[in-house]
């Protein structure tokens, strides 16, 4: 282990002197996250439009009509007809609407009796942000319904509704239940999304020098000098992996802190973030090491790793949100970036450690499989 650490510290010293490493590991991800969150956030504010449908199964009830009137009053919303939840679902799947809000039978009576009700929001798979807006509108509407319910309960059955009581109750956080279906029903802020995306995307570039370094040592002739030294070949490989792990952990940790501080990104539960960062770095080292062992020259290894990092990054949704439904939503989990994005966003939504068990498992499995194969192949590389 001491020999591996000696090799790792030498590699780290060389990385620090190579300013492009700092550029790739820190400056680029931070800069791009800032630029993306600024530019794409601005575009959305200026150009946002959405098409919604209200499915009113509450015959005779006035609350769905009030919600419809609310939507009609918003100039960025276009309303479409839908007579049933299944029709709305079909329209959403076809991309005809961005979201539908479904009021069930007896909804108004239920709310006014103080028994509450359930509003369902159906989101289109490819319109995550528009669906999120519909969700927010429904949540806001539900807050008012909670206030009514609370007032009814306070006044007692058959008594007139006290307007002051309603106003006070409206200040209470929403208690009405909103159920979302069929779309990416949540989203994080632009700055948080791009902070996560860029950190995950550039992580693979930050750590790729590790096992690629074995090829570099071989091309530079220093590998033979290392192998004649009284150390085990495993120490050489271990040293390379260790240096990559340190760079990955330090750069990602700095990015988490910097984006929180400078971009107001919200990464969520610190314990979950730390675990995901560790597992993510392990997976990145494993994947890039495996790819590097398939190459015969340093230049080739660099090209291979770049291809894998870019394709994995796009597939995993590091540049734009990917719908959980559909083909992309499924195949994104082939890439460690997909698992990492899923996990980090889950934490950013407010999820806890239990909510990221699957992403952690997915990333760890990828790390273990690719790491084991890379280790075996690397040993062949040093033991001729």
């Amino acid at each position: 282990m001491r020999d591996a650490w000696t090799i790792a510290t030498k590699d780290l010293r060389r990385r620090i002197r190579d300013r492009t490493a700092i550029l790739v590991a820190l400056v680029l991800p931070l800069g791009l996250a800032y630029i993306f969150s600024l530019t794409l956030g601005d575009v959305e504010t200026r150009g946002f439009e959405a098409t919604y449908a209200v499915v009113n199964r509450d015959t005779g009830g006035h609350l769905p009509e009030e919600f419809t009137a609310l939507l009609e009053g918003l100039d960025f919303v276009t309303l479409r007809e839908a007579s049933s939840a299944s029709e709305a679902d079909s329209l959403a799947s076809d991309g005809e609407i961005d979201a539908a809000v479904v009021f069930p039978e007896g909804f108004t009576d239920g709310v006014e009796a103080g028994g509450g009700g359930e509003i369902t929001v159906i989101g289109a798979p490819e319109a995550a942000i528009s669906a999120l807006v519909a969700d927010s509108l429904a949540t806001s509407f539900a807050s008012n319904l909670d206030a009514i319910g609370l007032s009814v309960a306070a006044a007692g059955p058959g008594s007139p509704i006290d307007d002051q009581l309603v106003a006070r109750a409206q200040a209470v956080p929403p208690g009405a239940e909103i159920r979302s279906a069929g779309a990416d029903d949540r989203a994080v802020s632009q700055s948080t999304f791009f902070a996560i995306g860029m950190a995950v995307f550039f992580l693979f570039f930050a750590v790729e020098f590790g096992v690629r370094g074995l090829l570099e040592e071989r091309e530079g002739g220093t590998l033979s000098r290392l192998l004649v030294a009284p150390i085990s070949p495993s120490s050489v490989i271990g040293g390379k992996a260790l240096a990559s792990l340190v760079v990955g952990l330090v750069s990602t940790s700095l990015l988490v802190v910097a984006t929180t501080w400078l971009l107001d990104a919200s990464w969520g539960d610190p314990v979950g973030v730390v675990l995901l960062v560790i597992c993510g770095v392990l997976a990145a080292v494993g994947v890039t090491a495996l790819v590097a062992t398939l190459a015969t020259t340093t230049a080739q290894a660099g090209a291979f790793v770049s291809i894998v990092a870019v394709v994995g990054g796009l597939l995993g949704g590091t540049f734009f949100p990917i719908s959980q439904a559909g083909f992309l939503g499924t195949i994104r989990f082939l890439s460690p970036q997909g698992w990492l994005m899923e996990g980090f966003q889950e934490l950013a939504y407010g999820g806890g450690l239990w909510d990221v068990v699957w992403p952690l498992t997915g990333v760890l499995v990828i790390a273990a499989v690719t790491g084991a194969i890379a280790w075996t192949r690397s040993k062949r590389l040093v033991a001729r």
Partner: protein
Amino acid sequence: MSSRAVDDEPAAVLGCGGLRKTFGERIAVDDVGFTIAAGETYGLLGPNGAGKTTTISMVCGLLTRDEGTVTLQGRELDTGTVDVKAEIGYVPQEVAIYPDLTARENMRFFGKLYDLGGRELDARIGRVLETIGLADRADERTDAFSGGMKRRLNIGLGLLNDPTLLVLDEPTVGVDPQSRNAILDSVEVLAREGMAVLYTTHYMEEAERLCDRVGILDEGTLRAEGTHRELISLVGEHDRLHIDARGDLAAAATAAAAVPGVEEAVPRDGGIDVLARDVRASLADIVRAVDETGTGISSMEVDEPNLEAVFLHLTGKALRDEG
């Protein structure tokens, strides 16, 4: 030539025998073996592609061998060996240094791999930097070094662990004459200090100057091995002595021919030519014999057969065809 068995030389620092390595169908090294004693410089002489680097890679435990044994100080050595390698100083053919580190940082890094540290490492680094003449440039990045300086550092790194066996793989390739001479001087000094040296080269002059014994390697096999004199005698070559003289040249030639070890002596215009097995051993007797005939000697020139001739004789090709 058959390999020398490792057990034949129990006092040897390095012993290897029956080394064989194939790459696919190609046999790179076949049945190569030799021993090196402390203070001895052994040269592996052969053209590029002869198997020199493959042989020393197996000797140093860099390359797995298909067959054969390697022992260093009596201990078996292969690619998985760790401790025994501490006895080896290795100077690869290419300059194997980190260009973005200083000379001292390069030395400190490799020194730590040899379990050196603290004052001991600092002292060794200082000593080696003095030896290779880089003490005043120790804290400069090596990418700013000239080719000769890089070569010297390359050798210095091989000396850092104070090795029992120093292995140099063509250390003078691409080096200017001045640096080359400095490198050869250093190797001579190290051998005199008791280090066993394994030196590969395709320069006949280097082998003749440095090596106590030479192994002639061609197409992966050791064609011949021995001292310079043994190799020369192996192919039946003779030394020639050209004497410029005045007087009774026929009598002088007859007197010289009578000296033991002299094969032939013939008069020519302005002198005599003498053919002997070892002219240097007989030189004093030849001069005395010629002088006793009253012939005045004005100058002499010894023309000894070289390893180039031996190589040509053994392989049918010139040593530097590919060099």
